[in-house]
């Protein structure tokens, strides 16, 4: 479990993170979604102990990152963005080194390295120098390093970057497997990645948490009201009058093409029946009647924008 409590990180007057609070639950994959510069990496760096927050606190695997920093660091395996490693080392010796850093007891190190190599499909390159590997393999070496000590929490910064589609699918499968008994938190700026890989989502915009929870729930909770689209044989004025009778109606457009008028109206719920009834009452023929719900993508794209009230111009890499 990861718990962030009002995490704030400021650089001078720039807020990389503002009072960000969220929870990543065990046995689930949580995606931290946001545009570049939204504060994702800053947030992950605080959770992994690389950075100290300006305000707020967090716990990782039940350990407070400020009160017990080393225990909290030990509870999380971390794959930083771009998966840095020592290019001159061979995969196997690098992982043995990482195992020693992560306090894996000496007698269990070889087995832990073998297991990580197997889980991250590194068998064929285990004796190669890391510098000679492709980006995809280097990413897997970093992933293997993160899971070596079998920590209760796995944190990954943009794990899909630089991977080809097949590798992305493989990585998702591995993360799913890891989530069987771990808390997995990953960051991404690509909505479809988060949708495909995660159960829960935390949406960051300009350092603030805009929404958090299971993906479907977040989408439903933040979805704008649906729009009703109808095409009727009446002039624009009469059609608009029809629309105004609907509950909570807000007219978007009523455009006439010949004797037909196309109507788009936002209503508080599914108003198809009431619209049809009203049209029948006035003997207005209908040739199209649809309820358009905004796509998941639309909902998330709106959430990813910073709230309009905040026009802070600062746009810094974080």
């Amino acid at each position, binding site marked *: 479990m990861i718990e962030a409590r009002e995490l704030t990180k400021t650089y001078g007057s720039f807020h990389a993170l503002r009072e960000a609070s969220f929870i990543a639950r065990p046995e689930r994959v949580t995606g931290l979604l946001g545009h570049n510069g939204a504060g994702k990496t800053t947030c992950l760096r605080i959770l992994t102990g*690389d950075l100290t927050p300006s305000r707020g606190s967090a716990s990782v695997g039940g350990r407070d990152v400020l009160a017990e920093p080393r225990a909290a*660091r030990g509870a999380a395996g971390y794959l*930083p963005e771009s998966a*840095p*490693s020592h290019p001159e080392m061979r995969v196997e010796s690098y992982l*043995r080194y990482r195992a020693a850093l992560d*306090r894996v007891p000496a007698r269990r190190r070889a087995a832990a390295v073998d297991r990580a190599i197997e889980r991250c499909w590194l068998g064929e390159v285990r004796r190669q120098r890391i510098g000679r590997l492709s980006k995809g393999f280097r990413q897997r070496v970093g992933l293997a390093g993160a899971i070596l000590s079998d920590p209760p929490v796995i944190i990954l910064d943009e794990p899909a970057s630089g991977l080809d589609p097949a590798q992305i699918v493989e990585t998702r499968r591995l993360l799913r497997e890891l989530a069987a008994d771990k808390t997995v938190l990953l960051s991404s700026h690509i909505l479809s990645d988060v949708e495909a890989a995660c159960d829960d989502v935390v949406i960051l915009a300009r350092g603030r948490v805009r929404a958090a929870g299971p993906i479907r729930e977040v989408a439903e909770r933040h979805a704008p009201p649906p729009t009703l689209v109808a095409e009727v044989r009446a002039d624009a004025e009469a059609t608009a009058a029809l629309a105004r009778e609907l509950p909570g109606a807000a007219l978007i457009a009523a455009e006439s093409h010949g004797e037909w008028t196309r109507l788009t109206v936002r209503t508080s719920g599914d108003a198809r029946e009431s619209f049809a009834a009203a049209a029948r009452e006035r003997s207005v023929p209908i040739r199209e009647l649809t309820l358009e719900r905004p796509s998941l993508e639309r909902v998330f794209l709106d959430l990813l924008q910073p709230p309009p009230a905040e026009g802070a111009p600062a746009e810094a890499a974080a």
Partner: protein
Amino acid sequence: MSAFASTGAIALRELASYFRVPLGWVVIALFALLSGVLFSLTLAPGAPASLRTFFNLATWTMLFIAPAVSMRLVSEEARAGTLETLATSPVASVAVVTGKYLGACGFLVAMLAPTLAYVAALEVYADPDYGPILTGYLALILSGMIYLAVGLLASTLSTSQTSAFLGSLFTLLLLRLGAAQGGRLPEPWSQIAFALSLDLRTDDLAKGVVDLGGVAFFLAGSAWFLALAAVALEARRWR
């Protein structure tokens, strides 16, 4: 126990990395060449069978070699991003710094090892006095250790290897200059300069005088710079 394991793993990786990149071999080769030329020049029939000239030169070249050996210790990892891996592992900053330091010290010993051939040569052709030779090596290693500790601190404070090199070189030159020219300073300062002088203590050792206080001076000085480096590494989390 596991803290020692992490320190040991860091030290071994560091030591091995010197031999995985050209820098390590270049430094060893240049040092062997320079000291070998010098040693053969001092060999003459009837000359005293000592390594004094070699030790004098080696102490001076150490001023340049130690910063070159230590410049990459932390700054290279900061540049490559692997420092993030160290910083997010459950290893304490003191253990990271100590491991890196021990690795660099190990390289120094590896660099000096080939010079034992000169001792062997003296043994074959003459009858050397082993006292000054042992204390000479001791002085060389002890001053190398404190130089590396200064260099490690400089490397922790900078993400550029060049500025780490120059920073430690100038600090070391200042320390040695202070000792050499300390007598010209007004009162309490000249005493401080002498008290901090590395030269006076290496000179004692070179003469074959082993003073425990002197040895402790080098070790405590190294520990002091290591502690500063650990603090600087920990302070990175507050950036």
